[in-house]
């Protein structure tokens, strides 16, 4: 088990064990750079694009990460385990609180 540093493009960073999903490590570090949804690879809220680093992924909803996107470095961070330090950018989903408040 190793510990890696995860850097998010908004300037925050936190530590993540190699056996721990990136999103869970972020929550435990009390960081909120990435939206937290279902934590099960289903909803797409925690989608990220990896700018640098190595990682592996568990199964993710193909409705949110297509095979092509996965090959391009997109992932759901709740299903993503680091294998090196990582640099990420959060890909925010379109539908959010603003739309609800406008109802």
């Amino acid at each position, binding site marked *: 088990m190793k510990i890696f540093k995860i850097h998010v493009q908004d300037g925050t960073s936190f530590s993540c064990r190699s056996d721990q999903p990136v999103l869970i490590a972020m929550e435990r570090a009390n960081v909120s750079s990435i939206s937290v*949804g279902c934590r099960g690879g289903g909803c797409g809220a925690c989608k990220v694009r990896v700018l640098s680093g190595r990682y592996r992924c*568990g199964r993710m909803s193909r409705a949110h990460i297509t095979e092509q996107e996965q090959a391009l470095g997109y992932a759901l961070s709740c299903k993503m385990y680091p294998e090196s330090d990582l640099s990420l950018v959060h890909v925010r989903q379109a539908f959010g*609180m603003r739309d609800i408040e406008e109802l």
Partner: protein
Amino acid sequence: MAITGVLRPGFVQLRVLDMEPAIVHYRDRLGLSEVSREADGRVYMHAIDDFDRHCVVLREADAPGMDYMGFKVKSDADLDHFKSRLQALGVETTDIPAGEQPGLGRRVSFVAPTGHRFDLFADMEEAANPPQTKNPDVYQFEPRGMGVCRFDHCLLYGDDLDGTVKLFTEALDFEIAENVTTPDGLCVGAFLACSTKAHDVAFIRHEEKNKFHHASFYLEDWSEVGKAADIIARYNMSLDIGPTRHGITRGKTIYFFDPSGNRNEVFTGGYMFYPDHPHRNWDASELGKGIFYYERKLNERFLTVVT
């Protein structure tokens, strides 16, 4: 009035990314029992208060969500009755022969304007271990995990809310127990009852069709909601929110996610709805209190995260 026609939610078929963790979740954490695994990979599960064979069907797929929800009708003749009423409203129906799911009779299937598929059925094989009916104990076997009594309802997100509400009220005799409207009269949420529950199915207006918000399971009392929270923490399950209470329906609740990201609720309480009752209405501006009565504020994850 006795309940006739559409009686109750019967089952829900959910898609999961990985079957084994899903079975652990629904069997060991919620407390359902595995009834069978079929050659096509689907797994069937039973809740302790079910007289019918199964109430949850799990299917492994590459994206989670709901395949369809089944409602039980009182008689086989009701299937033809509701089929013709659906068709009279311009809704296309599909006949699904008996046996497509083990132990399940023929179904009349349709897709509602919000994009969700629903199946009506009249017959399902009796459960192997139904609740006792002669000098019945409170249960035959001690409940496992959260010990949910039954599958209770779904909340679904979709675009043509008005169309789906019209279908359920005009073709299937559901009543609007409670709804949420904007100042200009747009309905953004509808809680529909076919029985004396505050909701048997509910819909929220959302830009995409056919989205799944949660499947809900019933608990006996508020202390069991606390016990469910203990289990969620003990097994590091993905918590959404709770324990808390809804203004809408008055249910006492906790929300969490299955390992594939499908939201579950376990809840208790809620008022009784009878067909002579007026429907309750919430202003969209009061939605915070309507959804989470104790917190009294909107919660982005609860409102926007769906599968």
